[in-house]
């Protein structure tokens, strides 16, 4: 029987994938496989049909297209205005280096058999035969750095938790992916959830932790449903439980829902929230690796960091390290978003340029107007002007100009964007999301927004910008965490690279 695929990914569902899948089934009697997304958002819902030559892609398929597509031979993979040929040969996909997202969109996310037959479980099978120390060594060798934004060397964190003496240790997955422009965590949790489960179970073996939590944001209802079903499946198949795949070691895992607070993506705030409290940031030290959840040693990692682990164990730390440049080793799932023609997920080794991602993959703006800037790394990331688009995406290059790669999100803006408005928004967002614990962030963000509002309303630029710059310095130096400490990054980059946007209202 013909195999047909309609993604269950949020980006497909938001464009009508559920209705498309239902209609295909109503007409043909064949229930489509609900796969993950291939990461080509502009083609969603991307319907694929299996043919002797390979999978053929159709998209974007709307409800109104379905009957006509079937009549014109979609089920046999025939040509059509919406047909893009073999999925694997689409340039957007063919030019990527997918290690973490290798299976995403290809397999049924909830099938353990398909997971295993596509290279899944190789990592944990190897890990089971290794000592905890050897597992941590492999992660160290890979050079993996935290993919949530802070880019801290993962191996060091693993060894700290492993070396800590405690009756209970925890693995906590930070799935509070709140940065605008990022959706890699969501996409992998929806498209290949067993990968995250395997990565967390390996982390348990490597550190001696027997209990894990996935702290998931409430804005991701599809991810919640898929992850929960995948965890049930993993217990059934023995990947989770008191005896993980016959290793004699226990690892238990559950999803914990957040409640709409961006700050809970900060690791100590997340831990507070996971303990049922206000998500207020903790002062460090003590490090969560030593005193984390319930004051026990806790390995806190972003989704993508944990999802890189099975590959590192399966193919070796050196294999992973051989991707990338300098101290930015491995691959990064970059997310091209905002005003872009062909937005989506591009997994590449570090070193690809910003311009290649935005123009080469993204095809420029969706509006067709010239690009003005791209904000890289979420709401706390810098606005990068067009003349810096030849910068390679790696941690050190970005750090040199006071910017960051963050979680790999790239938001494209065309020439209608007003950078003074964007700077004001950075303060507004910080004011809305600040946990309120430290003064520079709590008060600084509000004052910054007020000053920007006065400037935009036509106030004296010199007066207001002097105060804004002063506030930025206080927030950078005095804030407890990155929320207040990095809100000045978008503000200052907007001001540095687009000063004209800040002066146009000046009547002085």
């Amino acid at each position: 029987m013909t195999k047909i695929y309609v993604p269950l990914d949020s980006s497909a569902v938001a464009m009508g994938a559920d209705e498309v899948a239902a209609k295909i089934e109503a007409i043909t009697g064949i229930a489509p496989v609900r796969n993950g997304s291939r990461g080509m958002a502009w083609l969603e819902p991307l319907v694929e049909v299996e043919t002797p030559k390979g999978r053929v892609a159709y998209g974007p398929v709307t409800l109104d297209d379905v009957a006509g597509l079937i009549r014109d031979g979609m089920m046999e993979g025939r040509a059509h205005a919406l047909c893009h040929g073999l999925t694997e040969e689409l340039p957007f996909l063919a030019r990527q280096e997918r290690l973490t997202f290798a299976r995403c969109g290809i397999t049924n996310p909830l099938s353990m058999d398909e997971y295993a037959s596509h290279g899944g479980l190789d990592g944990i099978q190897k890990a089971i035969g290794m000592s905890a120390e050897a597992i941590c060594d492999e992660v160290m060798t890979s050079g993996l750095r935290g993919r949530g934004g802070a880019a801290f060397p993962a191996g060091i964190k693993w060894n700290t938790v492993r070396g800590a003496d405690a009756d209970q240790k925890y693995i906590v997955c930070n799935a509070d992916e709140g940065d605008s422009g990022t959706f890699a965590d969501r996409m992998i949790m929806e498209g290949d959830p067993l990968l995250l489960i395997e990565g967390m179970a390996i982390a348990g073996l490597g550190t001696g932790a027997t209990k894990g939590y996935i702290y998931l944001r409430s804005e991701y209802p599809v991810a919640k449903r898929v992850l929960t079903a995948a965890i049930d499946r993993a217990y059934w198949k023995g990947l989770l439980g008191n005896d993980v795949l016959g290793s004699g070691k226990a690892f238990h895992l559950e999803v914990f829902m957040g409640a709409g607070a961006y700050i809970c993506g900060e690791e100590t705030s997340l831990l507070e929230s996971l303990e049922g409290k206000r998500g207020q940031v903790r002062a460090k030290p003590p490090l969560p690796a030593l005193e984390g959840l319930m004051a026990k040693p806790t390995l806190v990692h972003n989704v993508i960091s944990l999802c890189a682990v099975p590959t590192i164990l399966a193919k070796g730390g050196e294999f992973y390290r051989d991707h990338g440049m300098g101290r930015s080793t491995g691959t990064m799932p970059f997310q091209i978003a905002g005003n872009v023609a062909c937005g989506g997920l591009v997994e590449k080794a570090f070193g690809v340029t910003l311009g290649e991602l935005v123009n080469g993959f993204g095809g420029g703006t969706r509006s067709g107007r010239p690009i003005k800037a791209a904000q890289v790394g979420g709401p706390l990331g810098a606005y990068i002007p067009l003349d810096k688009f030849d910068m390679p995406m790696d941690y050190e290059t970005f750090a040199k100009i006071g910017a960051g790669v963050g979680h790999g999100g790239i938001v494209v803006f065309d020439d209608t964007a007003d950078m003074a408005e964007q700077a004001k928004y950075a303060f507004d967002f910080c004011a809305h999301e600040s946990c309120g614990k430290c003064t520079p962030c709590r008060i600084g963000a509000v004052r910054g927004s007020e000053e920007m509002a006065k400037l935009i309303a036509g106030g004296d630029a010199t007066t207001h910008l002097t105060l804004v710059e002063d506030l930025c310095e206080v927030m950078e130096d005095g804030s407890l965490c990155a929320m207040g400490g990095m809100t000045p990054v978008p503000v200052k980059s907007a001001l540095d690279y687009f000063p004209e946007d800040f002066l146009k209202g000046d009547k002085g």
Partner: protein
Amino acid sequence: MAENTSQPRRMNDDLITAHVGETGGLMRALNALQQHDGYIDAALVPKLAKAFNITKAEVKGVISFYDDFTKAPKGKHVIRICQAEACQAVGSRGLTAAAIEKLGIGLGETTPDGRVTVEAVYCLGLCASGPAAMVDGQLKGRVSAHLFDAYAEEGEA
């Protein structure tokens, strides 16, 4: 009448006691109550405090910290419009203005007849398919102002 009021109250008690002793029990209980009732009834605060052995002030502190927990019921329909950068880049400011104009209410407000609530949301993870919104829990990508027509007309009828 007595039947009607005691029934949901007993369910609320169950939703609270089910999470006592669990990691993050208060968050779980509040999420369950919000989902079940559509808001957190202030009358439940003493019960929550007693169940989790913390002060009423601490319970209130947790409720007020998180955007998802509301003190009053929302409208029959809840429209959440993304306000974050990726959606700004494709016109979410204009879209939000259109919603406010068509529905006659601001962000965070409910129509006087209790039919529609419009809220800000900061990122639905649909950043390459913006502007994004969520209507009664359903995700919507590449949203245009026409989305609001049905809700605006329903009100005039």
